[in-house]
């Protein structure tokens, strides 16, 4: 299958690659870019384990073609920490035991990262709704909600890296 040249910025780094047009973004990130944080948990676009941030939006990268990202700014979980300092959402998940097997975590973190920019002071109910595109099998969500609220608080009070 013939390939198309695609260029985008991933975690601040410009990249250029030739890909088949049918290549899903999640495979492009995982297999071509070796950014294996984003995961694949389904093929019906429900689980959100592949969530990344594209041009200021949370996107399920299993439901997006790499060639659609031409010229885009893509952020993945690997780009969250800044010079070794964890982002508030990462710190929140750690502090509140918001992860167990860690498989949903990168998608959860990327969603929380965007959600808290869209809604910096959410209620618990708003967190649950705001994170509803992301499935988790281990935590029962309760500590994830706490983690997101923890991060919201930290971002509001500027106590950790953002």
């Amino acid at each position: 299958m013939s390939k198309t040249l695609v260029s985008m910025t991933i975690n601040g780094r410009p990249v250029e690659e030739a890909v088949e047009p049918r290549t899903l973004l999640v495979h492009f990130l995982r297999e071509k870019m070796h950014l294996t944080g984003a995961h694949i948990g389904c093929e019906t676009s429900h689980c959100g384990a592949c969530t990344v941030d594209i041009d200021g939006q949370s996107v399920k990268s299993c439901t997006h073609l790499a060639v659609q990202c031409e010229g885009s700014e893509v952020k993945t979980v690997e780009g969250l920490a800044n010079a070794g300092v964890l982002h508030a959402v990462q710190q929140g998940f750690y502090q509140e035991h918001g992860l167990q097997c860690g498989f949903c975590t990168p998608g959860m973190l990327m969603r929380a990262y965007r959600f808290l920019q869209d809604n910096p002071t959410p209620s618990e109910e708003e967190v649950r709704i705001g994170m509803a595109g992301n499935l988790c099998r281990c935590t029962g969500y309760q500590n994830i909600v706490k983690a997101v609220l923890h991060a919201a608080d930290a971002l509001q009070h500027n106590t950790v890296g953002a």
Partner: protein
Amino acid sequence: MNAPANDREKDLMGMGMSRLRKEDARFIQGKGNYVDDIKLPDMLHMDIVRSPVAHARIVRINKEAALKVPGVIAVLTAQDLKPLKLHWMPTLAGDVQAVLADEKVHFQMQEVAVVIATDRYAAADGVEAVEVEYEELPVVIDPFEALKPGAPVIREDLAGKSAGAHGERYHHNHIFTWDAGDKAATDAAFASAPITVRQDMHYPRVHPCPLETCGAVASFDPVRGELTTWMTSQAPHIVRTVVSMLSGIPESKVRIISPDIGGGFGNKVGIYPGYVCAIVSSIVLGKPVKWIEDRIENLSSTAFARDYHMTGELAATADGKILALRTNVIADHGAFDACADPTKFPAGMFHIVSGSYDIPSAYCRVDGVYTNTAPGGVAYRCSFRVTEAVYLIERMVDVLAQKLGMDKAAIRSKNFIRREQFPYTSAFGFEYDSGDYQSAMDKVLAAVDYPRLRAEQAQKRADPACPTLMGIGLVTFTEVVGAGPSKICDILGVGMFDSCEIRVHPTGSAIARMGTISQGQGHQTTYAQIIATELGISSEVIQIEEGDTSTAPYGLGTYGSRSTPVAGAAIAMAARKIHAKARKIAAHLLEVSEADLEWEIDRFKLRGNDDRFKTMKDIAWAAYNQPPAGLEPGLEAVHYYDPPNFTFPFGAYLCVVDIDKGTGETSIRRFYALDDCGTRINPMIIEGQIHGGLTEGFAVAMGQLLSFDKQGNIQGNTLMDYFLPTAVETPKWETDFTVTPSPHHPLGAKGVAESPHVGSIPTFTSAMVDAFAHLGVTHFNMPHTAFRMWHQLKAVGLAG
């Protein structure tokens, strides 16, 4: 170094502390290493051609078109596996399972051929291009139909075999009959009992559905003759032994590695055809081969859970004292019996079915049956069929209470095994280690103000205009975890011990490895906490590893909540061996006798003299630097622990539901879960296990189902329908605990991780049925979806 003892103890971050997890740093930065993250030079990708029908002869497989697809390297069928005798493989249940379908397919989505290609896109194209011609056969989905005289023969390969791995077979679709207890005494008790109740119930087929599916990277090195396989295995050492036996490669040249696993939940215990085909493909092609299944394949062809059709009976006095329990089960095992169980227990630990109650006579019988469905049975936090056992007894106690007009809590109080009766031998022969059921239930009833809830319910029942039905569910369960004593428990002949090896370094840090394998339960954190307290070394510098059969000691893996009971015990015992040697070294260094030393947190000190001491760090250095005469240099130990008994954690769960009379939709108003798993290693991690397990229970009871139509088509096998709750649906959980240690466990700790799943499911059903109890309803089957509840409401004349 002479800080106050309290501070030093805190610094260890050991037993009992809610220390944050050592695993998290890599997972929150996308630096976990799961199977599909692995990339090896020249690695190929394998995909599977699956059966579109449930039961059919394979007339012909045409590979030609597939081999012309760009990127496709090879297509393998049963014909290619036959010379290696690998077209069938043994299962943990003592049956065999087709690796690639040979003469016929036995269930829809069964593995028929594999395509190996340069990448997963080309492999998928190749799968599309393989042409298979089928000749359809009559399908059997209902296990009761399967046992009828003229039922289609599912397993032609067993023709003429009147006995299987678990005794006689009375029908071509019958797998085994297993029973326990005293049938004659139980029948006699029922014959003379003043009150008897009987209830049929189905525990529906569901699936553990870990977020990461199953997969492997098999890499056979033809130069060295060595096979390395990374895979999603909850029991990598057992896999190594099995792979060695099947392949003929010496076990020392087989290395199985379970890297980070994205959840297991019992789904990743057994060996699937995909693993075998990836290994064979790698051996044939001399290159690494990756296989990663997708969600629909995972839900359709890997280990399902439950599917027990159960009849329960209780005999009792008129005032609610249970005299006897009788239960009969038809177990749907699918087309091959691949049910993961200790060899001697084809129905797992189902005979824990007498529950938390002192029942003098009991008998249970389970008949396993083949159907045209995927294999499985034991998975999804079941502790080897304890889910089914607890569901049955708890439902039956409710049914009895209803018949007698007794309160649910009162009837449980009346029948509890009393605290002073432990160790208690049940009518089925289990010796329960310890328990205090009454205190646990009382704590829960007080916490939720049970009398007030009942008063509110009575008020609502009295008001015909009330738009909702209110139900109160109560379950008081006993688990059995920590398989198990090697006298009775083995996996394919290997006794169900587990192990730990701890090595203290010259500078006082340590590395430790165990024969278990975490899939998110936090072993890297909690195992270090056990060692920290035993040895006075900070858990921060104790490195824990599992999953690599070339480095970790042989163990049986992680399932059945066995890690804490078995490996946890091995850890403590190994640490105590080191501790004993450390005491000798300390005595030598301090020039005193061992008896004059006392251990305090992280040091041996001279009794009554706080200033003369040697810390474990001092001792570690001395062990390498100047070992005393007669002692080997170094400081390390190994322990293989064969448990004397299982552990028997318990819990008391209460749930309040409100069901909308108009729509059948249920809202979970409150769920209160008290768990007692003895000594608690890390309360934060236990709470996370409870939240996850309760959420699974909510999913199973309220929405999950894998069903089949008459043609044998599996239904609801993607996330389009298979109910996985999001944060929005998932209730808020309240958790509580009491502490009743296991007397036989070195730490007093019991397993716990499956308790919330085991206990919560009957709690939801108990609450749902309770909402209809005043209308004479004694039971209805899961899942309690809005649609099904609406039908239930209609049946009692309530729905509009």
